[in-house]
């Protein structure tokens, strides 16, 4: 009996100590980072790099746990339903946050169920054609599509992702009819473009293929200027409805303490500035782009609303 009460007392003491420690200094124990994508992909690499570098800075282990399925919604809903103590966070990217919930039922509400910790990558989405293509500008491409309804074949890396919605919104605004040909992944879309199966693609791989002299960039599908083609207009600059940010970021359940977001606002810029992160970002062809808790939340909310309107206008379901 005495043993049990002693044990209970010890547990109680430990519990009060740990909650005290939370107020004093987050983090004081290992953090779990849920990655909703499988091992080997870009999202997984990003999660592991952030976990390693941020863990080194904060002095705790950050363990990456892959929870895949349902187009990333399973992993993200695990984050949304976790204890909001800052010890379970998740890797997020654009599609399951700002795009997909408008087309399919998602097991979470991106605005109400998640706290956005910060963004660390913005990937460019150049609209590319083959280097020997007759289309020299976005206007050439639109002109062809107008004269030849349904004859322009194009693709993106993910069906019903941000770039797909953005380009469909552009065609809708121009009132043209083009044919979207789905491929599984940007490298397959690039192979199809170079092989002549399709005529245009909006894929992140387009920057490297343009530097290699295989393709030409006509426009940029995200709000950021494309470093390879600074003169190419973004879709919104060209007067079209949306150019959603394609981001990699971190999220936590709604209602995490302010210390948690404050800590990450301090740590994430250090991670991103480190030579290790810079080098891996270059290898992965990521554009490093930091947005803190406030700025990232705003990006998500703006894009979420814009995508909602665009998707309703196009009638994509």
């Amino acid at each position, binding site marked *: 009996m005495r043993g049990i009460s002693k044990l209970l007392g010890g547990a109680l003491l430990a519990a009060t100590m740990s909650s005290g420690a939370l107020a004093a200094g987050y983090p004081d124990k290992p953090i779990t980072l849920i990655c909703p994508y499988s091992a080997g992909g870009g999202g997984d690499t990003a999660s592991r790099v952030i976990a390693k570098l941020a863990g080194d800075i904060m002095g705790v282990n950050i363990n990456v746990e*892959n929870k*895949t399925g349902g187009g990333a919604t399973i992993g993200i809903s695990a984050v949304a339903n976790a204890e909001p103590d800052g010890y379970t966070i998740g890797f997020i990217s654009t599609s399951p946050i700002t795009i997909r919930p408008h087309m*399919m039922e998602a*097991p979470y509400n991106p605005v109400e169920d998640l706290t956005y910790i910060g963004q660390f990558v913005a990937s460019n989405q150049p609209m590319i054609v083959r280097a020997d293509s007759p289309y020299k500008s976005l206007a050439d491409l639109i002109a062809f599509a107008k004269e030849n309804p349904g004859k322009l074949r194009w693709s993106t890396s993910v069906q019903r992702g941000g770039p797909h919605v953005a380009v469909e919104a552009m065609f809708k605004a121009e009132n043209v009819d083009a*044919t979207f040909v789905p491929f599984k992944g940007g490298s397959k879309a690039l192979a199809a473009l170079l092989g002549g199966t399709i005529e245009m693609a909006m894929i992140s*791989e387009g920057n490297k293929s343009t530097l290699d002299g*295989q393709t030409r960039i006509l426009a940029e599908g995200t709000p950021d200027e494309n470093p390879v083609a600074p003169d190419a207009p973004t879709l919104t600059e060209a007067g079209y409805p949306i150019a959603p940010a394609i981001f990699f970021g971190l999220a936590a359940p709604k209602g995490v303490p302010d210390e948690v977001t404050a800590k990450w606002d301090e740590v994430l810029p250090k991670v991103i500035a480190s030579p290790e992160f810079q080098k*891996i970002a270059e290898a992965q062809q990521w554009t490093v782009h930091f947005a803190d808790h406030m700025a990232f939340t705003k990006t998500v909310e703006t894009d979420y609303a814009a995508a909602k309107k665009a998707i309703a206008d196009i009638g994509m379901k």
Partner: protein
Amino acid sequence: MGDTFSLVADGVSLALTWQSLLAIIVGVAAGQILGAIPGLTASMAVALLIPYSFYFDPWVGIPMLLGMFKGSLFGSSTTAILIRTPGTPAASATVLDGYPLAQQGKGMKAIKMALYASVFGDTFSDICLIFFASLLAMVALKFGPAEYTILIVLALCSLGMLSSRPAWKGLVATLAGVIIGMIGLDPMAATPRLTFGNPELEEGIGLIPMLIGFLAVSEVFRQMSGKAEDLSGRAIRYSDDPADNRVSLTEFIQCLPTLIRSSAIGTVIGAMPGLGSTVAAFIAYGEARRASKTPEKFGKGALEGVAAPESANNAVSGANLIPLLAFGIPGDIAAALILSALMVQGVTVGPLAFSQNPLPLYAIYAALIMANFVNLFLGFGLAKVASVAFSVPRRLLLASVLVIAAAGSYALRGSVFDVQLVFLFGVFGYVMMRFGFPPVPLLIGFILMPLLEENLRTVLLLASTYDEHLLFVFKRPAFLSLLAIMGVALLLVFWRRRRRALAARADA
């Protein structure tokens, strides 16, 4: 000419250091072990290492990675042969003849054949990569959905001959495979299909849980239903006859045409982004059976039935680097990981690399060839270890296979649902076996049919954008050449049959 030679020598010397040899040995050994454990893949291990790759010297990190991928393909075939558990999906065709061989006490013979075939396939495709990369890549780029469709049809034709009697059972099994393969997102519309609103099913039934359950767990159930006294015997018997534990030179020479044909199939498929090593293994298996003089032996322990898929799946892994080095397009996840590892080290690949900075390419080539030799030598060691490890009493082995199956399928993506799937498919496979339904048509339906659907529907979608509609395929040179090859192959089959029939009549 002298310049080129010194360039090659400089490049090769980058990779010919004791550090990189050591790295290759470590990589191949790790790959073989990981490959043998279902659910753990070389890609996973490489993904875990990427955050640390920054700290490696380039010519330690890259050779290690290449070795790891090569080792894992052979490693996965040892468990496929001995316990009917393919460590990776690419080894599932190896089960078909490898496991019967092991049951006959010829497990070591099968494993050694798999090892020789793996190294042969690797070397074949590496040589193609070194000498014909840009040419092969140019050809592969001309292959679009129309050509993929006809290739898969070709594969289905040659595999269709694998169907057993009675024919209706084969048909039912194929359809079951097709239905299981249809679960998930529709390939064209990306809307959920047969998921019953369950998000776990949205990405389809995973290849690994399905294969482990259907092949390995069902076999455990079958053996468990046997007599109790059988269970205390040795799980896998090895024949005392030394001829059953090695591959003789005569046997190797008999398999040589199969090895060359399968390696060529693997190289061509590997050069095209989109089909992959599992498909190549099945196509090579079907072709080996079609070309064989004794096709009835396939499925009952034909050595060519091990040689074909093993050389083809390894050839794919080398050939995946062809589009990567020529165009910067990674053909599969392994190639994508190699690309990012190369770029972390400041090595760029793509069309400009050949002319601007070919040094690292020569170093990669040297590392690839070295890794093949290391794979061969370490492979004997793994074969020895595996033969001892699986010599435990049957009751212990059966229980361990169930544990490995559950743990492996969980490890893959941290999903309890996948563990449930493994056992569900185990029961399903057992029931099918009891009622005499053949497993191969189900695998073909599950693996090839979704690819056929995706490519055929893409062709139909593309047809709507051409004036000549579906006839646009006849304007594609690649399509016409494939059609011609298919015609010649069919003619050969008829000619051979006719000659055989005439010979039979002459005898009578």
